């Protein structure tokens, strides 16, 4: 079990992503994981749990606030941004590219942090993929609806069968080098304008 004794704080305004990271860390054997969504309470939370590692999403506009709090903190173990010695530049690069940053208590060994950051990075990527796939599925569903509407118009106005309506839309799209959904959208808009 890796680093079971390290306590980890996740700060992410996105609740879903925060819980995906939390699950990942727990699956990797980390028992002391806390999540917060708003930096405003950070002073109290940090005082109470004194985390060894803080994971924060880069979209969070309050990173400056968090760092200022660290600089004022009188705690001996002051968190610093990732690996200040830059000896692991690729790690930092991978993290920032994934959209995540981490603050680590000064003096903590790099090899103890790396597995934690690895989990955070892979979970950030997983969340991004999930979001992208969801958006794609939504847009495909929208496209399908528009094409169905266009087919219905062709069936009604030109007396075509459903299969012929589909073929007509597809061949028009191919001839004009446009997407089928764009042709369908034009047809639906035109039908709306011409009215019943």
């Amino acid at each position, binding site marked *: 079990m890796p680093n079971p004794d390290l306590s980890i704080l996740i700060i992410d305004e996105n609740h879903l992503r925060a819980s995906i990271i939390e699950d990942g860390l727990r699956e990797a054997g980390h028992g002391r994981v806390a999540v917060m969504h708003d930096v405003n309470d950070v002073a109290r939370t940090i005082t109470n749990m004194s985390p060894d590692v803080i994971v924060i999403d*880069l*979209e*969070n*506009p*309050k*990173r*400056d*606030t968090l*760092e*200022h709090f660290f*600089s004022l903190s009188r705690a001996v173990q002051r968190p*610093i*941004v*990732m690996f*200040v010695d*830059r000896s692991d*530049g690729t790690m*930092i*690069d991978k993290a*920032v*590219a994934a959209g995540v*940053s981490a603050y680590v208590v000064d003096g903590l060994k790099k090899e103890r942090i790396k597995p934690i950051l690895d989990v955070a990075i892979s979970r950030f990527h997983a969340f991004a993929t999930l979001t992208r796939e969801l958006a794609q599925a939504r847009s495909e569903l929208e496209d399908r609806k528009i094409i169905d509407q266009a087919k219905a118009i062709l069936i009604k106005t030109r007396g075509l069968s459903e299969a012929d309506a589909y073929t007509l839309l597809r061949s028009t799209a191919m001839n004009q080098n446009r997407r089928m959904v764009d042709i369908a959208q034009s047809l639906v808009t035109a039908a709306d304008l011409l009215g019943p």
Partner: protein
Amino acid sequence: MSTTHLTAGFLPLLDSVLLVLAREKGFAEAEGLDLTLVRETSWANIRDRAALGHFDVAQMLAPMPLAASLNLTPLATEMIAPVVCGLGNNAITVSTELWTAMADHGAPQDLAAGPSGAALARVVASSQRKLRFGVVHQTSSHNYELRYWLAASGIRPDRDIEIVVLPPSLLPDALGGGGLDGYCVGEPWNSIGVASKGAHMVTTKAAIWQSSPDKVIGMRASWAEQNPELVASIIRASYRTGQWCADPANLVETAQIMAGAAYLDASPEIVARALSGQFDIGAGEIQHVPDFFIAHASAANFPWKSHALWYYSQMVRWGEVAYRASDAAIAAACFRPDLYRAALAPLGANVPILDSKTDGTHATTYEIAGTAGPLVMGADRFFDGQSFDPAALERYITDQTPN
């Protein structure tokens, strides 16, 4: 001409105008630069992504390259600033409640820094609780000019007043929600506070220190060394953009472009206030501040080494670094007037021939020597009458309070 792709980071503030217009008005393209702009959410992200090379260049707070080069920030990397993004652009804005109290204690409506500070000092002396002001970053011009104004008004920052850090876009809401009593920030965030939260502007950066720098275009020193032609192109594109932006005939278009959803995402009317200097400072009171933001005049884009040293003096003043002559040299070396001058030589532009100047010694406009004749400079007074001579840096630092 071949085109080079360049990525620049910025925050939604009016003085990103040089980068935005360089792209939108084709000044970057004319220099062979295909400029991609990335709007960021925090100065910490700008710092990290510039250090990691995700951004080739970025709009930065003037003290940021100093802090990075002095190893004060995470991912510390040597940074340089060959261009300044204009002079001024900040103001100090307070809540309705604090303004009422300040007005009761004699605060003026004309944004004068001295009388405003004196009124705030009287409020602080009689206040039951410690007032809280927001700034955008620790190593920021905002932090240093707010502290300068407070200290010179007899208010000791940290002891008499609390200073916290919040990103620009969150300041108006924090003020409206009662979390802050005031803040120091660049436009349009003062005007947005006035328009949406009943806030009141009490003074401006131009009133605290006339013709003073705020943001720079910063980049890694190693990248600049490897890409001298790109750096020169960025300087020329910025210079031409500044010239275009400074023409009053282009004010409306500038405001419209900057107001766009990808940039400041605010109303063009609000954005235009800082460009015209015509402000609603609160409750419909209109004030004209002609030198509020100087995009190009007064050698506004020239990176004076003395300005870098002034910021260094304030980092020492507030305990962020101990004074060392070698560190002062590192700070001064971050601003690169040599690169600026060399890049503009082919244009025949008139550029200061010296790298440093005194500040606080001119109450009215004056002339300095330029590479193509005399250059007219704006007044440069500090509101408390102090002057800054970079040749006497150590004494200036010793004489500061607290020390």
